[in-house]
């Protein structure tokens, strides 16, 4: 099965709604080709997850889109502008969540957000009131209690939330999240996911995220783009991708204290039949499509096998 042909272009996004628009992006370091023709688009308000094995070119792609790296060739438009010559107004509309290490250690949390917010004030528009008021922002990321704490004294999770706060202080139209929840405990992860939903619901922010956590991708992303070997090997919603790999669903149930598992292409008739036959004896009934993890592994393996 080849997945790269028709799928590489992904679902058609009307040109006017493309917040990100990449066509045939190529990147070469010396003699090594890292990206060999990447094409995809993102629509306003969409959460797009960029997945792929290490070394697939995710970071390179995202850094080109952020305007931090020059590309070798290809057409790239981010918010209608070529990021290689973005300019400061363009920069004010883009948010980048960086992995902090120990920068600004002497600054106090609220002081730093207040300061960084000031850079966005000249770019405030009637649609987007910039910057985000520090008090509200601290509340959104759950750092109100740490407002007066020096950045160097924050815990890892708190620092990460500060990174997110810095990324969104200018109320970006497009937000880049590179592995946002590495090192989060499950509670912090859940809170972060709620925050992402709030951003897309309230502000119509478009989000491009990379992650290795496939559950996270499935929960957050409207669409998933899989990058492998320097090109897009699949592009679609989690459902669409799983249908691509397998039409079968997995049905699990318990009867007489015994657990059963069955795979079927058509789950509905099978379950109807099952219930007609056994009725209330069937308990703990579950119908699941192939998980994103299975889909992902299958797609990447097939692709690597074919090259």
């Amino acid at each position, binding site marked *: 099965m080849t997945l790269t042909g028709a799928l590489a272009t992904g679902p058609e996004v009307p040109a006017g709604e493309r917040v990100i628009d990449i066509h045939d992006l190529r990147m070469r370091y010396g003699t090594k080709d890292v990206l060999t023709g990447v094409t995809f688009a993102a629509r306003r308000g969409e959460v797009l997850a960029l997945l792929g094995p290490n070394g697939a070119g995710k*970071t*390179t792609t*995202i*850094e080109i889109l*952020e305007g*931090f*790296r020059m590309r070798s060739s290809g057409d790239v438009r981010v918010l209608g502008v070529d990021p290689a010559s973005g300019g*400061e*107004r363009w*920069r*004010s509309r883009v948010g*980048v969540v*960086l*992995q*902090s*290490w*120990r*920068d*600004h*250690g*002497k*600054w106090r949390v609220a*002081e730093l957000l207040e*300061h*960084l917010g*000031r*850079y*966005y*004030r*000249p*770019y405030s528009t009637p649609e987007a009131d910039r910057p985000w008021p520090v008090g509200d922002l601290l509340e959104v990321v759950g750092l109100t209690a740490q407002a007066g704490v020096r950045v160097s004294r924050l815990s890892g999770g708190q620092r990460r939330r500060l990174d997110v706060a*810095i990324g969104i202080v*200018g109320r970006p139209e497009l937000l880049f999240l*590179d592995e946002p929840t590495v090192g989060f405990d499950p509670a912090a992860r859940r809170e972060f996911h709620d925050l992402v939903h709030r951003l897309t619901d309230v502000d119509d922010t478009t989000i491009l995220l990379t992650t290795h956590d496939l559950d996270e991708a499935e929960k957050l992303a409207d669409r998933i783009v899989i990058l492998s070997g320097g090109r897009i090997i699949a592009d679609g919603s989690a459902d669409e991708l799983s249908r691509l790999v397998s039409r079968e669903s997995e049905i699990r149930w318990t009867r007489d204290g015994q657990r059963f598992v069955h795979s079927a292409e058509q789950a509905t008739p099978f379950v109807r039949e099952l219930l007609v036959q056994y009725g209330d004896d069937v308990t703990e009934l579950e119908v699941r499509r192939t998980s994103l993890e299975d889909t992902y592994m299958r797609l990447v393996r097939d692709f690597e096998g074919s090259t």
Partner: protein
Amino acid sequence: MFETVRIGAARGRIELRQTLTTPLDLWGYLFPTLILLVVLFFMRDATIPGTDFSLGASTLPGMLGMNLAFGGLITIAQLLVVEREDGTLLRAKATPNGMSGYLVGKVIAVGGMTLVSVLAVLIPGALLVDGLETGPGTWLTLLWLLPLALLATMPIGAALGSIFESPRAFPVIMLPLFGLIAISGIFYPITAMPGWIQGVAQVFPLYWLGLGMRSAFLPDALAAVELTGSWRTLETFGVLVAWAVAGLALAPALLRRMARRESGSAVAARRERMMSTVGR
């Protein structure tokens, strides 16, 4: 543009306040004072040969000049290298006009730090030694010398900071500077050096900063022990302006190159390298 300068100035003030409330940084300002005290202790009875003028008093202005050079060259270079490694610069790059604001802030913060480090030596020093002369001439000299000193050193310091990739390269900058201190007439009269060393010392701003400070704080009669027997105010001005011009011509291109290369993976790679050396 004006707004960016204002934000950058605010950044500089915040950083200055932070450094003045951080114990480790304060130690950095007071350490030269300690050196001065030690130097003065050993010089307590010495006079400039052929005069009865205190050697300590004649050394103090040179130390002020040295502090100016340290602040302008080393502090800014170090900060650029460290803050590139820790991702501060990348954050600036991710912010609209952030890089300009960052640089304005750095100039103000480092200018302030340098001034503080000069005062940290001057105030206790003035109480300890006899013979410093302060009058309208002193303040007039400082009025042009201090800004020119920063203008002559900071762009060069920034250029150095943008070239070196890692804090481990600091010795490469520091060693030549220590050599320069030794030959620039700060602690030991330049007139006692061989002619070619005098020539080398006079190429660099350090000697002229020391000379300028001596011209501000010492009685005019002491110009007699300098090279050519004068304070050479015009030459001081000329050499410092030349360094300022060279620095301002060189620094913007190097800083732009540095900024262009910043990216998340560049910072991550540096962090990785640093972690692996620390772990070893």
